[in-house]
């Protein structure tokens, strides 16, 4: 299903989708959004890419193995809860940085946790799509 028009637009859409995903992610703590939603949105362009161009060409563009991303995401989520243990609080207690950063807002372990979610969703969806579009 390679059409010139589609592939061009897809190229334009990819950064749009990704920045949109990041937008949804960072506002997630205060508005609808968050890791799961952002992860899925971010995976859409690559998913389409794999559908249009086939798995092989997509993996040439998308070099990192998606399953690795999923593993790292899970690791991030797991570890983000351990900071509090170091401070003598139960696992997964939130630890926040006092300062508020511009655009992103407050930074704390829940944000990292949510980013772990994002990575997992992103990796999982991509891995599955890649496998299914593999001939």
């Amino acid at each position, binding site marked *: *299903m390679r059409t010139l028009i589609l592939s061009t637009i897809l190229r334009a859409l990819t950064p749009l*989708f990704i920045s*949109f995903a990041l937008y*949804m992610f960072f506002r997630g703590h205060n*508005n*609808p*959004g968050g890791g799961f*939603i952002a992860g899925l*949105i971010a995976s*859409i362009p690559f*998913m*389409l890419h794999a*559908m*249009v161009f086939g798995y092989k060409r997509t993996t040439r563009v998308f070099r990192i193995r998606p399953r690795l991303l999923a593993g790292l995401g899970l690791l991030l989520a797991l570890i983000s809860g351990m900071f509090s243990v170091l401070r003598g609080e139960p696992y997964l207690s939130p630890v926040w940085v006092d300062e508020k950063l511009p655009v992103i807002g407050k930074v704390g372990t829940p944000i990292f946790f949510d980013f772990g979610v994002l990575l997992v969703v992103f990796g999982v969806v991509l891995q599955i799509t890649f496998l299914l579009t593999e001939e």
Partner: protein
Amino acid sequence: MSLFTLAAYIAIVLISISTLLTLIRFIIGPSLPDRVISLDVFSANLLAVLAIYSVLSEEKAYLNVALIMSLIAFVGTMTFAYYLVQKRHKHQGDDSGYS
């Protein structure tokens, strides 16, 4: 009820009718691309409903739903198209309707 709300309600009714018509096309088909397009229009209708509903309920959050809705519907359409073309390559002459 303010004039604005009334207008919004009318709009919702119009779009509901529109949705119904879309669904009729979906049901009668006859070809698969017809159905795909009607799904596409269906999702645009949903987008509209959500946007208007957002206005009516003064809840911006629903606009986000609409936003993502519009992105997602496109992916759905693409997949159906992908299916059509792939199917064509796989089973020559055995397209949508294999009943």
